[in-house]
């Protein structure tokens, strides 16, 4: 344990920041689609005055709450942990609640579209079922044979570290829906399912690695990956998705984890 911190310290002037938050104007363009109204999608746009701390989600809320209540999108936690609000923002898959407006080029309209490759239900809402179907198929749960210990299973810190990166997945689908292979071949498992397989294949407590490797050795499995790195760039949790897929490929070839 560290030594006890000082009871009193000199603080640097202006520490913490804050005060007046700057405002700026943006144009928000949202791709609209509602089959109850029309089979055609179209763009709507709004001019909004926003604050320096605002995110794309705040701009969407401002539209929904003050201009057009019919604009539809999913969201919940609003700070990047629940995975509800993955969308295409200026052509890149991101979470709306984690994308600060000030970090975008606000001199041009900000374009917001649904993620690609999954059927659009309404506006920014897509059907997530195909995504979760792939997830379920890779046996995303610990399978442990042999006797259950009375206390916890032991796992060294190094063994725990081996699969740490892929435990961070929040199933937002930003990676899978950024993958060009997934766009053209909806049967492909996609990066998120492989990431979640990786999380168990490399867990020293798990005994079903071979079965998962067999599932992913399928023609719609890891070999469809063309290593374009879109997924790694899209992941809002910073998971090295392409690396995880490569490790699964390697494990299939060597049957060693």
């Amino acid at each position: 344990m560290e030594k006890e911190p000082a009871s009193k310290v000199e603080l640097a002037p202006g520490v913490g920041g804050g005060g007046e938050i700057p405002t700026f104007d943006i144009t928000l363009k949202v791709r609209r689609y509602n089959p109850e109204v029309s089979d055609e999608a179209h763009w709507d746009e709004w001019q909004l005055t926003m604050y320096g701390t605002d995110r794309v989600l705040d701009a969407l809320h401002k539209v929904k709450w003050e201009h057009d209540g019919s604009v539809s999108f999913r969201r919940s936690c609003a700070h990047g942990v629940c995975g509800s609000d993955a969308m295409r923002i200026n052509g890149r898959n991101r979470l709306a609640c984690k994308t600060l407006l000030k970090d975008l080029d606000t001199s041009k309209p900000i374009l917001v579209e649904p993620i690609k490759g999954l059927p659009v239900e309404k506006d920014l809402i897509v059907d997530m079922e195909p995504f979760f179907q792939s997830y379920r198929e890779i046996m995303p749960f610990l399978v442990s044979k042999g006797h259950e210990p009375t206390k916890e299973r032991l796992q060294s810190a190094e063994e725990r570290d081996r699969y740490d990166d892929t435990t961070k997945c929040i199933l937002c689908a930003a990676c899978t829906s950024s993958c060009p292979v997934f766009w053209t071949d909806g049967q492909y498992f996609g990066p998120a399912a492989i990431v979640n397989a990786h999380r168990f294949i490399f867990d020293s407590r798990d005994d079903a690695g071979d079965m998962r490797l067999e599932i992913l050795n399928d023609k719609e499995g890891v070999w469809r990956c063309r290593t374009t790195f879109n997924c790694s760039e899209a992941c809002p949790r910073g998971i090295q998705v392409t690396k995880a897929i490569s490790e699964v490929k390697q494990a299939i070839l060597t049957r060693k984890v």
Partner: protein
Amino acid sequence: MQVHKYDVVIVGAGGAGMRAAIESGQRARTAVLTKLYPTRSHTGAAQGGMCAALANVEEDNWEWHTFDTVKGGDYLVDQDAAEVMAKEAIEAVLDLEKMGLPFNRTPEGRIDQRRFGGHTRDHGKAPVRRSCYAADRTGHMILQTLYQNCVKHNVEFYNEYYVLDLLMVDQEVTEDGVTRIQKRVAGVVSYDLASGELHVFQAKSVVFASGGVGKVYKTTSNAHTLTGDGMGIAFRRGIPLEDMEFFQFHPTGLAGLGILLSEAARGEGAILRNSEGERFMERYAPTIKDLAPRDIVARSMANEVREGRGAGPNKDYVLLDLTHLEPAHIDAKLPDITEFARTYLGVEPYTEPVPVFPTAHYAMGGIPTNIKAEVLSDNDTVVPGLYAAGEVACVSVHGSNRLGTNSLLDINVFGKRAGLAAAEYALTADFVEIPENPTTETEELLNRARSSEGGERVALIRKELQDIMDANVQVFRTEQTLVEALRVIDTLEERYTRITVQDKGKRFNLDLLEAVELGFLLDMAKVMTAAALHRKESRGGHFREDYPERDDENFMTHSMAYKDPRATETSGVRLETKPVIFTRYQPMERKY
């Protein structure tokens, strides 16, 4: 209208709901209804850990944990429930490990443990390492692990099915020659967000696990979706709500935003400082300082700001200082919260202190249950077939102030108990006939919202509600602020009858959803404020400046709030009391 039939219906798919489903799904035909997708639930936002006296890193036992929980709740905790929770904590953590949860490990490969506010060795002598954790994403790991095990056990989910009503019927029962009317559960009514259709679920057992109500406040760590639906449904159907005046303000929300920075930061050695650079918690809690329970830390922070020692240009926050910790240590133990500080405030926690202020975090109160998770319709009458667990419930293990980590524990211990009890009941009980026209009330509710053309905006009414709750029903309260809040809520409620929902469609009508949610928020704000007005003392999370002392003689009781139109003085909320259950510990002065 479609009708489905299940032995057990679980409302909500966060930690408590899915923990219940894992038990119930293996024993009885079970459906889980959630207005989100399961992995979107707010359990996933919990960070710091889950306490259990495993004693993996130092001496500890469940009795010390029980004591800390009772004292932390300022003696308003039902001690039988606290004892159950602290005892079963150990199995609950081991259950999760066996399900695959990737806990951080000790050098020996055991589950690692760290310090947390209010958790102490030997009845308050010093902080103890009791919290089992996975970096600062323990809630995420719990939610994912429970979902994974639901997939494993083929649990049936109805995603984006928003439950709007609880169906109950009155039955005559005769016991010992005495005949009385008893409520029994028949099922629930839900609204399918994708299609806009109503679905009735007939069930022998219904488990409410629908979470909290943080969105009555503006500054909150809670998700947009936490609008008190479950509590509201029960309240409207005549079930009382217990201890609703007790709402926890988590000390360390990112200033101005309310996003949670885990208490684990302080567990790992971070400290709070005021504008003078002073570690002010040394004055308020000399023994455990920054690791005092949340109510005390939040009040101390608010007091520093009130007395002019707040930091920043507006002197309206204090600072969480991690700069004396090794960056490698921060990266290993607190990666997510340091990223939140960087992303949302542009502050680098390695080198700069982080602006923080209390954020509305957790409802200690809720639907009253006993330790079997059975719902009570008064102080001691069980509603057969109705269960509740997690934040929506009040069992009461948290009393007037919940200790950090005890909510992740609560959902696992009482979620499991609820699932087991619901399945067991369903295996012996018969279905109760669904009442005639079961969706009439729900249809009226939706049609009122959809067809009203009064021009009032849902978002504006909600904002005004959140503003008055932040201003008048926050850390400090007085009769004057509470009476004023009730008056404002009454006017907002009147305006709510004149809202206009712009989206008139059926498909994913989330505009309508927000209107319905606002109705629950208004009801719950009213209950919370009326209960706070009723409790003329200060205890735990409820601090009355006009009654600053704890008053055991008059208020060592739970409050029970009933919907009652005759209680016009308190906006249709009637307050009664319920005795606290004592087993081992007599109330003492609460010092840290």
